[in-house]
C-alpha cells in the first residue's frame, strides 16, 4: 500500500538557514498523525515543504508520486493545508473564500452545503468578508476552504492557536466528522491534549530532526516528553 504522503530524507531551508534535516516519515490513508515539537522545531516548515515554500531537497511523494515542487500541485493531488494564522483572504467573502478550495478541482462529499452543515456559523455569515470574522470563524473558514478541495490528507497547522476553549471543543467535534469521512489528518498542535483526542500516532521534531515517533499512548511517557521538550 502506498502512503498518501511520504517524506524521504527531506531537508528544508530558508535563505540558506537549514530548518529541517533528513526527515523521513509516511502517512497512510485514513490515519491521523500528530506532529509535535517545540517552537522552532520545524513543524510548520515540514508542512510548508510540501508546497515548496522553503527550499526543499530530498523527495516528497503523494500517493507514491514524487511531486515536482509546483506549489499548486499538492492540492490538486488531495493534500491540503490549513496554514498557521488561517490566512483568510480578507477582501473576499466567506463564500468566495470557500470557492477558492475548488481550484484543486477535486470532487467528493465536501461542497459548499456540507461545509455549511459542518460549520453553521459560516452559513450565517456567508456574504460577509473574511476580515469581519472572529478568530474562531476564520479558523472554521480556513478548514472549510481546505475541505472544499475534498482532500485525502488534511494538514492543520496550530488550528487552536488563539481560540477560546469552547470553540476548541467545537473544532475537535468537526475534525472527528472529517476523520469519519475517511480523510487523513496531519495535526500540528501545541496542545498535546488535542492530539491525544484525535490522533493514533505521533511524530516528534526537535531542532529540525525527526527524533521520535510511535503510538499516541507513548506521548505520555516521561522519556518521550523530555526528548521533545529539549
Amino acid at each position: 500500500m502506498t502512503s498518501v504522503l511520504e517524506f524521504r530524507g527531506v531537508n528544508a531551508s530558508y535563505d540558506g538557514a537549514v530548518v529541517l534535516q533528513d526527515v523521513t516519515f509516511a502517512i497512510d490513508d485514513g490515519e491521523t498523525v500528530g506532529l509535535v515539537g517545540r517552537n522552532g522545531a520545524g513543524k510548520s516548515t515540514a508542512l510548508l515543504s510540501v508546497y515548496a515554500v522553503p527550499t526543499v531537497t530530498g523527495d516528497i511523494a503523494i500517493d507514491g508520486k514524487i511531486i515536482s515542487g509546483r506549489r499548486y500541485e499538492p492540492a490538486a493531488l488531495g493534500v491540503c493545508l490549513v496554514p498557521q494564522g488561517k490566512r483568510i483572504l480578507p477582501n473576499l467573502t466567506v463564500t468566495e473564500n470557500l470557492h477558492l478550495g475548488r481550484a484543486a478541482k477535486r470532487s467528493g462529499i465536501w461542497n459548499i452545503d456540507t461545509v455549511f452543515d459542518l460549520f453553521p456559523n459560516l452559513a450565517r455569515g456567508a456574504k460577509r468578508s473574511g476580515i469581519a470574522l472572529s478568530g474562531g470563524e476564520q479558523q472554521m473558514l480556513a478548514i472549510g476552504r481546505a475541505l472544499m478541495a475534498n482532500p485525502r490528507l488534511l494538514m492543520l497547522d496550530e488550528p487552536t492557536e488563539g481560540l477560546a476553549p469552547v470553540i476548541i471543543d467545537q473544532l475537535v467535534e468537526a475534525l472527528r466528522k472529517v476523520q469519519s469521512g475517511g480523510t487523513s489528518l496531519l495535526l500540528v498542535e501545541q496542545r498535546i491534549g488535542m492530539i491525544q483526542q484525535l490522533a493514533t500516532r505521533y511524530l516528534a521534531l526537535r531542532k529540525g530532526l525527526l527524533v521520535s515517533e510511535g503510538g499516541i499512548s507513548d506521548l505520555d511517557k516521561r522519556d518521550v516528553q523530555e526528548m521533545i521538550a529539549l
Partner: protein
Amino acid sequence: MNIAQLLNGLALGSLLMILSSGLAMIYGLRGVMNFAHGALYMSGAYLAYTVTNHVSFWAALIVCPLALAVIGAVLELVFFRHLQTRSHIEVGLITFGLALIIERIIGIIWGPHTLPVPAPDVLNGTSNVFGTAYPTYRLFILAIAVVMAAALVFWLRVSDTGLHIRAASQDGETSAILGINVDRVSLTVVCLGAALAGLAGTLAAPYFSVQPGMGMAILINVLIVVVVGGVGSLGGAMAAGMALGIVQTVGAVWLPNLAALLPYIALVAVLAWRPTGFAGKRV
C-alpha cells in the same frame, strides 16, 4: 465650459482608464510597476496604423490587442516569472529598459514621423449630444471604454478565473497552496493587461495620430493614475483614470497656465492626504 469639452475629458479619461486598469492588474498580481506600459500602448497604435492601411480599422481593433497579448506573454514568461524573487524595483527598472528597446524598434520600423490613422467612415462624422455636434469617433472611444470596464469588473466578480485573480493578487502564496495555478493566472493577467494597452493604442491612433513620443508621454500620466487610485486597485485606477482625463481637459479651459501641472498636483495632494491612494491595495 461646454458639453464638448466635458466629452473630450471623458474620451481622454476613457483611454487612461483602459491603460491604467491593465497596469493596475499587473501590479496587483506581480507587484511590478510596468514602465513598459507606455511602449505597449505605442506598439498598439503603430500596429493599428499598419493594419488600418492594409486591411481596415475594424481588423486593427481585433488584431492589435491580440498581438499585444503575445508581447505580454513574452514579458511574463521571459521576465516576470523568472525574476519573481528579485526586488520589485529592479524588475520595474528592467521594464524601463524594455520600454527604451521597444520604442526604438518602433522607430526603426516606422520611422520618426507623425502618422495619421483615419477613423472608419461610419465614425467619421459628428453626432448630436444634447444639442452639441460632437465627433462620433470620440463617443465611440467612450462607449468601448465603458463596455470594457463593465465587462472586466463583471468577469472579475463572477468567473472562477476572476476569483483566482483577486485571490492571487491579495496573497499569492496562500492561493498557490490552495491549488490555484498562480503562474497561469499571472500569464492571463499580463496578457490581458498588454492587450488592453494595445486596445488603448488602437483607439488612440485615429484620435491623436501616431508619433514617437506618445508612449513616454502617456506613461507618466498612467503611472500617476495608478498611484492616485491606490496601487493595485482596479476600481481605483479606473475611477482615477477617468477623473484625471476630465480634470486635465477641463483644467485646460479654466486654468490654462496650470493644466499641465494638474496631474502632479493631484498626485501630491492625494498622497499627502492618503499615502496608499484612494482605494488602497485591492483588486
